[in-house]
């Protein structure tokens, strides 16, 4: 699975209250949620991401709440993948369960700049940016199977679990 996109960069500790504030959690419609993605940080995020982007961020991306709407909102807003220095466990699972690839790369925010075009091999974790190559941690094992199935429930229906 190869993914390409223009980089939108964020710092450390991007939390779920920032990704999708609690007042929108009474709904699960992806298009509705997408319009409010990252709203506290940048109300224009939805427009900026709509052409398809890759988020590059620092430590514990997605920390905080279990709200699956965080992954749904980012994906629907146009985020094709997230490269972060580390992910919060619950968000990582929610992203996989919603078909949003998540790649771990040490020093990601130092190595990759805003606006660059990145090319990611989701399975091997190889990342290519402007001729530079980096080795991140791709998605493997059970998580990859769940991602490929289209989420835990699809995986469940295939009677593997």
């Amino acid at each position, binding site marked *: 699975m190869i993914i390409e996109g223009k980089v939108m960069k964020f710092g*450390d*500790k991007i*939390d*779920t*209250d*920032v990704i999708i*504030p*609690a*007042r929108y*959690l*009474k*709904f*699960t419609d992806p298009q509705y949620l997408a319009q409010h993605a990252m*709203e*506290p*940080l940048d109300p224009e995020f939805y427009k900026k991401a709509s052409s398809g982007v890759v988020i590059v961020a620092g*430590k*514990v991306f997605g*920390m*905080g*709440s*279990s*709200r*699956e*709407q965080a*992954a749904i909102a980012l994906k629907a807003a146009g985020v094709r993948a997230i490269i972060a220095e*580390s992910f*919060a*466990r*619950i968000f990582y*699972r*929610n992203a996989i*369960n*919603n078909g949003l690839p998540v790649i771990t790369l040490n020093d990601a925010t130092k190595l990759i700049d805003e606006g660059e075009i990145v090319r990611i091999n989701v399975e091997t974790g190889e990342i290519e940016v402007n001729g530079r190559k980096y080795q991140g941690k791709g998605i493997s*094992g*059970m998580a990859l199977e769940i991602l490929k199935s289209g*989420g*835990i*429930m*699809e995986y*469940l*229906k295939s009677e593997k*679990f």
Partner: protein
Amino acid sequence: MPQTLTEKILSRASGKEVSPGDVIEAKTDIVAFHDLTGYHVIEVMEKAGIEKVFDKSKIVIAFDHLAPPPDVRSAEIQVMIRKFVKKMGLPNFHDINFGIMHEVLLEKYALPGQVIVAADSHTTTSGAVGAFAQGMGASDIAAAVITGKTWLVVPTPFKVELKGSPGKWITGKDVALKLLQEFKADYFNGMSIEVYVENPSTFPMDYRATVSNMGIEMNADALMFIPDEETKNYIKTMRGYEPALVTPDPGAKYADEYTIELSKLEPLVAVPYSVDNVKTVNEVEGKEVDQVFIGSCTNGRLSDIEIAAKILKDKKVKTRCIAIPASYEMFRRAMDLGYIETLVNAGCIVTYGTCGPCLGGHFGVAGPGETIVSTSNRNFRGRMGSNDSKVYLANPAVAAASALEGKITDPRSIA
């Protein structure tokens, strides 16, 4: 090989000896959800076309985030879940008059050695009695509701020792904030924290629940107190029976250890907009406060209400103050002991069993430019309402003292 509590629980749940880093399928003893995540869980099940539960007696549902419903959509969500409960014949359903889900799990269901998963990040709270408890998203919980299983990566165990006894106005909150100050929000990612208490009776279940609750703020997979006499006494008092205790083997190996001398702690405050931006109360004293909130699944227990009542007795608050015991049981006990009357006489608004203001839901949403002192668990931007509001996290003594003075106040300076 001698096993840590984490390894012991997950070995039992997966049916094989586990090591940190292993990806396992674990049997779940309790699967839970509340109103705000529950409708999403049911939606996922409906979309997948699988409407069955693995064991009716092991599903727990408690309404708390939208309780009582503040708008029509919230009421609609609750109607949908009540229908599901009825259709599936689920016995462990607690409607809006019962309490916050994590408190309900602690009071009635969680046991040492169990694996508990629920659709809410603060599920780590059940670690207070020594259960391996993780929060997950709606899809993962839907799968667990159906199969009674979940997949986990076995975390690396880390040991924390609590030595001595806490001083006046020091509670579990200060231990949680101390760990966040020392290790920051990313250190425990992929780890589980096992807490050993030197003097079990000086660090009661209320305090333990607060620390476990904020295990997710440390990004730990689980934060468990190693079960002891206090665990046994708590469950016996609340439920009338003595639980079997699951404990680590002597000589079990931890990645590292850290000791907190409880007597040396002072009241701590997490400053906006990060849970690990921790300062002593003296560093932030004097900051004017618009609203104080004492409650939530972090600090809505009897001892929290008791502390607030002691500080506010026969006095009047200078700022808006909202107090919410975490459950019907906590409210009733606080009422019997006169704490509710004390808080009401001091000018507080008191209700029971809702998450309400903690996540900016209702019953005290923060307005633009407002400063809130809260005993809850998160001070992220916009957490309690307006993106332009600021939340300071503190223990109930600091919160009550701040309500009394209208500004952030060290409780040791007034009582």
